[in-house]
């Protein structure tokens, strides 16, 4: 044990350095490697070319999520997608890697099933060829996205060459007001620091607002750390974390659990440890957030006017804002409120867990999706789907007129055929509003599940706090509406 106070990040880093030669990056040991179909084929090819095997199949978990169909069945959108899925099947089989394949009843988005199955645990180093690996930081793990070359490194050696990132505390004080959620915290942070504001840093989220969030909300926040350019986002584990992990299929059991728990309790940042930077937010003043532009940092409070390009003095920033507004066909100076919506997408590794579906269903119960609006609900995993159906949430969505789908990344990345038509505007609970992200020419407004549900009901961008309460419905013995 070091006698100097250390941050959560520093403790996990120190515990995973295998070797560090002068002038070279550290060789960092990776506890869990998550693999999906899109960023792994070329990495497995490198293994094949060099006659290597996956070094630790028991630390490697594969899933199919990006290009799988959400209408059920096995047909990917096209032949290349099918080939990619088949290739992951054969690679996993050849190397003895556990695969949550198309016919798995527990398959789902990689960042949903990792925690759900108990693979994700505090104190771990977790990587995946996917930038949203930052999600797993919600458990007090160091999770970050890597490229395909690095996927190959980890498959072959279980290690990665890494330079230590700087740390940034993101302290979120106060309590959220009703109708304001974890998604609004992260969108507000991104609006404050911009999409490059966290570059070179690992975020640690602290403060009352973070502590009072459930694990799902914490995952939503850590998930979008990458949208601020941060290498990772982390939250110190606490009783909520341990309660979430306990009993899951791949969580430690018995004496191993006790030993793990004792270790996990030592992870939170020590009193007196310092960060390279600190950013603060006051959760009590936040309102529901929406993005208006073509990066996740271009967000405003739902009632606020969009910024005017003429208000920016930096020519590059002004040109960027003009380009974004032109793509989105929106005008500066006016709020987004009331903007007509074509599509509502509830899903993605950011907001597709049971609590997200419940929040939207509670608002939609007994109501209808507005005429002319297409709403898609895509659970983050088949386990989420089954749990939601056990509560009757699928019926709520279907009766409202929404499309209830199988698990997958779906319209967040639009690789599987689920996509916007050119010009369509979506309110989406996903994480990226880049040009064409949800389909070429499509326009994305990022928002919380509540704001998405409100848009579905009214057919336009709507403050969810203006949607009145609905009547609680009792299903079986469990009251599921608030």
């Amino acid at each position, binding site marked *: 044990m070091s006698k100097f106070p250390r941050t959560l990040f520093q403790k996990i880093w120190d515990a995973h350095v*295998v*070797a560090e030669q002068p*002038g*070279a*990056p550290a*060789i960092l*040991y990776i506890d869990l490697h998550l693999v999906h179909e*899109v*960023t792994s*084929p*070329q990495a497995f*090819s*490198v293994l094949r*070319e*060099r006659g290597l095997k996956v070094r630790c199949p028991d630390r490697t978990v594969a899933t199919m999520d*990006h*290009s799988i169909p959400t209408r059920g069945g096995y047909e990917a959108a096209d032949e*290349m997608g099918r*080939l*990619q899925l088949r*290739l992951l099947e054969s690679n996993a089989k050849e190397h003895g890697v556990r695969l949550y394949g198309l016919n798995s009843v527990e398959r789902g988005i990689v960042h949903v099933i990792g925690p759900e199955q108990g693979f994700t645990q505090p104190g771990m180093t977790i990587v995946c*060829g*996917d*930038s949203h690996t930052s999600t797993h930081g919600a458990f007090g793990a160091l999770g970050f996205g*890597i*490229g*395909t*070359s*690095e996927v*190959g*490194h980890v498959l*072959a*050696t*279980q*290690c*990665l*060459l890494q*330079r230590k*990132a700087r740390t940034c505390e993101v302290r979120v004080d106060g309590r959220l007001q009703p109708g304001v959620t974890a998604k609004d915290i992260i969108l507000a942070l991104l609006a404050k620091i911009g*999409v*490059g504001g966290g*570059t070179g840093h690992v975020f640690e989220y602290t403060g009352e607002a973070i502590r009072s969030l459930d694990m799902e909300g914490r995952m939503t926040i850590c998930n979008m750390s990458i949208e601020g*350019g941060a*290498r990772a986002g982390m939250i110190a584990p606490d009783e909520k974390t341990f309660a979430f992990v306990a009993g899951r299929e791949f969580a430690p059991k018995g004496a191993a659990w006790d030993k793990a728990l004792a270790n996990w309790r030592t992870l939170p940042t020590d009193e007196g440890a310092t960060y390279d930077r600190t950013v603060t937010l006051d959760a009590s003043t936040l309102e529901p957030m929406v993005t208006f532009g073509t*990066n996740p*940092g271009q967000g405003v409070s739902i009632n606020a006017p969009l910024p005017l390009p003429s208000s920016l003095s930096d020519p*590059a*920033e002004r*040109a*960027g804002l003009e380009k974004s507004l032109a793509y989105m066909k929106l005008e500066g100076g006016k709020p987004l409120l009331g903007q007509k919506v074509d599509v509502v997408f509830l899903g993605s590794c950011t907001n597709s867990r049971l609590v997200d579906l419940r929040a939207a269903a509670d608002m939609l119960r007994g109501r209808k999706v507005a005429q002319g609006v297409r709403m898609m609900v895509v659970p983050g995993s088949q386990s989420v789907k089954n749990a939601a159906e056990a509560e009757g949430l699928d019926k709520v969505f279907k009766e409202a007129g929404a499309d209830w789908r199988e698990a997958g990344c779906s319209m967040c*990345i*639009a*690789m599987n055929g689920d996509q916007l038509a*050119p010009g369509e505007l979506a309110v989406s609970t996903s994480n*990226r509003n*880049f*040009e*064409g*992200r949800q389909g*070429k020419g499509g326009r994305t407004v990022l928002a919380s599940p509540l704001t998405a549900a409100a848009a579905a009901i009214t057919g336009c961008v709507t403050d969810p706090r203006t949607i009145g309460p609905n009547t609680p419905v009792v299903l079986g013995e469990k009251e599921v509406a608030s």
Partner: protein
Amino acid sequence: MSAPQFTSLTARAVLLPITDVDTDQIIPARFLKVTDKQGLGKNLFCDWRYNDDGSPKTDFVLNRPESQGAEILVAGHNFGCGSSREHAPWALVGWGLRAVVSTMFADIFRNNSLKNGFVPVTVEPALHAALLAALAQEPNMPVTVDLGGEEASVSWPGQAPVAFPIDPFARDCLLRGVDELGYIQAHEAQVKAYEAARA
């Protein structure tokens, strides 16, 4: 197994000084269904580069006749943000580019680029502005990116070499064509010892 090498490059540049260019623009997700690294160059910046009917947009910089043969991209701040897809540097390299100059790169994109012999050159805003101004005057001006000197540097006619920061290990790997995977594999004994100590 040979790794990409890079010592010095003197080449013409193409300008795309737009801030926060994300990897979804560099190579849209629908082109990520490939199982190798080939052929991505033709879809580099696809949605900015082609009309809906597939014809090239004549005013987009990569489509201009004078851009052909250029090997250095001068990009805007925070280039390569967003998705971790290594397909982004694969597509840039596939088009024929070998280096990119900006005031800041996204972390994952920078790492991915270095592993593909595609050199991210980070410069101060004033130098970036000077480069853009010089290229506006003289679009065919050659720009030099050199990793082989005392320090890695960038220069052009009228601009003496200016050092730019690059991970010394990555630079050494590029200069010598050393493969990072081989480097990690050479530490297998330490990895085993680490695992044994933790068990």
